[in-house]
């Protein structure tokens, strides 16, 4: 049973989901930094103290952003580079905030704290949650310290602005990350559930097949073997009777075929025929078994049609039997030649596909079962013969 498709499908859902989230984060950060930050920087260029510090900070953050994006899309941000790049981004942020003029900590000149927060979302996406929380706390602290350093924390209005600012920057970033992680988790759960469901269905199908197979074998035993055993037990049939011995030999061979049918063999037809031959050999019949040609896969019903006659011939053989299997381009032919009596194979078995000949001159029963392959196979496709 192939259950390999389940895990790989679930895995690929999770992988694709992670990739989409990564691309979204990369786009948000790129638009934010190269769009919004650049605009703010250009507009307030003359007011930063000094302007080159703001520019240097912007450049460093640009570099970190490019490296971080590439690493994230390659799934390489699980290790130490992530916190390292985050620290660089945070330091650049500190420099940028330090270059704000008085009264600029929360104004149309401030950009760095929010940007560093988004950098955290990008760089720490595949790291433990606490690292991101710590970084966001640092960005809030950065703005708070900047306000304090400029002596602007004296009023309630300043605190209200700080809270509102933090809520719309660090708060949104935190919410974004929590939401994406939750969705990721849900996707994984869904994939797992689908896989478990497929497993259950496969197990149920296997169970049903097993049950049906058991019922089939039970029906067979009930209909064919039980009456014979009953008659023997009740003394109505005598083991010394040639007919009873023959019937027993036939049922023994059929039982072996029944068991052989459910065994896993390279060539089930040969396996089943060998099982029948084996029963005959136990009666000291000298059985020759030869097979030529490459056997195709045959369904159980076809194998039964091909073995029904041979079972009877083998079970009736007195001393010798020759079993041959020949596969040609269009047909599978099973032949049995045995020193059995003419009546060994009843007329009912002589169906289409099985022909029986009793050669009186040589006193041999010669049975042949044929199965025409439904689709003519190409003559070259299955050839294993190497010739000059």
């Amino acid at each position: 049973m192939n259950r390999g498709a389940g895990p790989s499908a679930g895995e690929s859902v999770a992988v694709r989901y992670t990739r989409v989230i990564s691309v979204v984060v990369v786009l948000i950060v790129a638009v934010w930094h190269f769009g919004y930050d650049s605009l703010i920087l250009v507009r307030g260029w003359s007011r930063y103290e000094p302007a080159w510090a703001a520019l240097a900070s912007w450049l460093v953050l640009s570099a970190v952003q490019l490296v971080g994006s590439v690493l994230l899309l390659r799934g390489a941000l699980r290790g130490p580079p992530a916190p390292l790049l985050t620290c660089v981004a945070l330091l650049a942020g500190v420099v940028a905030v330090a270059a704000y003029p008085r009264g600029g900590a929360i104004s149309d000149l401030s950009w760095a704290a929010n940007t560093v927060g988004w950098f955290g979302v990008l760089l720490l996406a595949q790291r433990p949650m606490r690292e991101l929380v710590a970084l966001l706390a640092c960005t809030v602290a950065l703005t708070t310290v900047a306000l304090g350093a400029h002596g602007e924390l004296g009023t309630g209005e300043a605190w209200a602005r700080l809270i509102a600012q933090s809520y719309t920057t660090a708060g949104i970033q935190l919410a974004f990350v929590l939401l994406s992680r939750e969705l990721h988790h849900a996707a994984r759960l869904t994939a797992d559930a689908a896989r478990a469901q497929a497993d259950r269905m496969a197990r149920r199908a296997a169970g049903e097949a097993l049950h049906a197979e058991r019922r089939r074998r039970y029906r067979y035993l009930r209909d064919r073997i039980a009456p014979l055993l009953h008659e023997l037990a009740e003394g109505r049939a005598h083991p010394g009777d040639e007919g009873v011995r023959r019937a027993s030999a036939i049922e023994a061979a059929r039982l072996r075929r029944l068991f052989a049918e459910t065994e896993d063999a390279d060539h089930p037809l040969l396996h089943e025929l060998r099982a029948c031959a084996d029963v005959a050999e136990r009666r000291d019949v000298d059985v020759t078994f030869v097979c030529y040609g490459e056997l195709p896969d045959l369904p159980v019903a076809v194998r039964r049609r091909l073995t029904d006659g041979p079972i009877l011939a083998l079970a009736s053989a007195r001393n010798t039997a020759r079993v041959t299997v020949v596969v040609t381009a269009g047909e599978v032919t099973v032949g049995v030649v045995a020193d059995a009596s003419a009546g060994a194979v009843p007329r009912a078995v002589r169906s289409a596909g099985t022909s029986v000949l009793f050669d009186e001159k040589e006193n041999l029963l010669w049975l042949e079962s044929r199965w025409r392959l439904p689709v003519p196979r190409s003559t070259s496709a299955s050839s294993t013969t190497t010739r000059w």
Partner: protein
Amino acid sequence: MAPTGTALDVGIVDDHPVVIDGVRAWLAEEPGIRVGHTGETTADLRAGTVDVLIADLSLDGRLVLSDIAELAAEGRRLVVFSQFTDESLVLDVLNTGVNGFVTKNEGQAHLLHAVRAAAADRPYVPPTTAGVLVSDRSPVAPRLSQQERTSLLWWFQSMSKASVARRMGVSVHTVDMYIKRARVKYAQVGRPAPTKSDMLARAIEDGLVTPAELAGSAQWRPPAP
């Protein structure tokens, strides 16, 4: 062509002395056959000149297919007598140009038929070879007629040409002809060998095939006028 009137010289090369002794005993019962050479190694394949050489396929602990092919290419008449029954091996051996392949479990009668046929450049197909030929589905396999296929298949199944004849409703001679024709068709394909040409020439003499039927054969060169 084998000498007529004088005894047929047969060689036996097999790595088991018991097989040599056994085959020698079988041949001793046959009038007009004497064993002129025996040996157990690859070198013994080339030593001695006999009319027909009965050779085992495994000598000196290896498969001697290439040595067999060389001997056939030199025009030596060979009957391979082997315990191997693998179909691709049987086909490969026949393709080298040997006159016949008899498996060791086929026994005395088939080996004797094969030796006599080889001496006369005539085909002989024991049941195992028949099974191999009828199940051959390689692209280079010659096209066999329905009667030829049926004869090969039933000969393989029953090992009795009389039974096959009764089942087909024809004479034993006709069954034998179908089987020989199938073998002759195999002599027309694959690697050229003098033994194959000899067999084809004899098949025409015997009326088994006509020169026209051999026109496309790689083995057959019509004699110069």
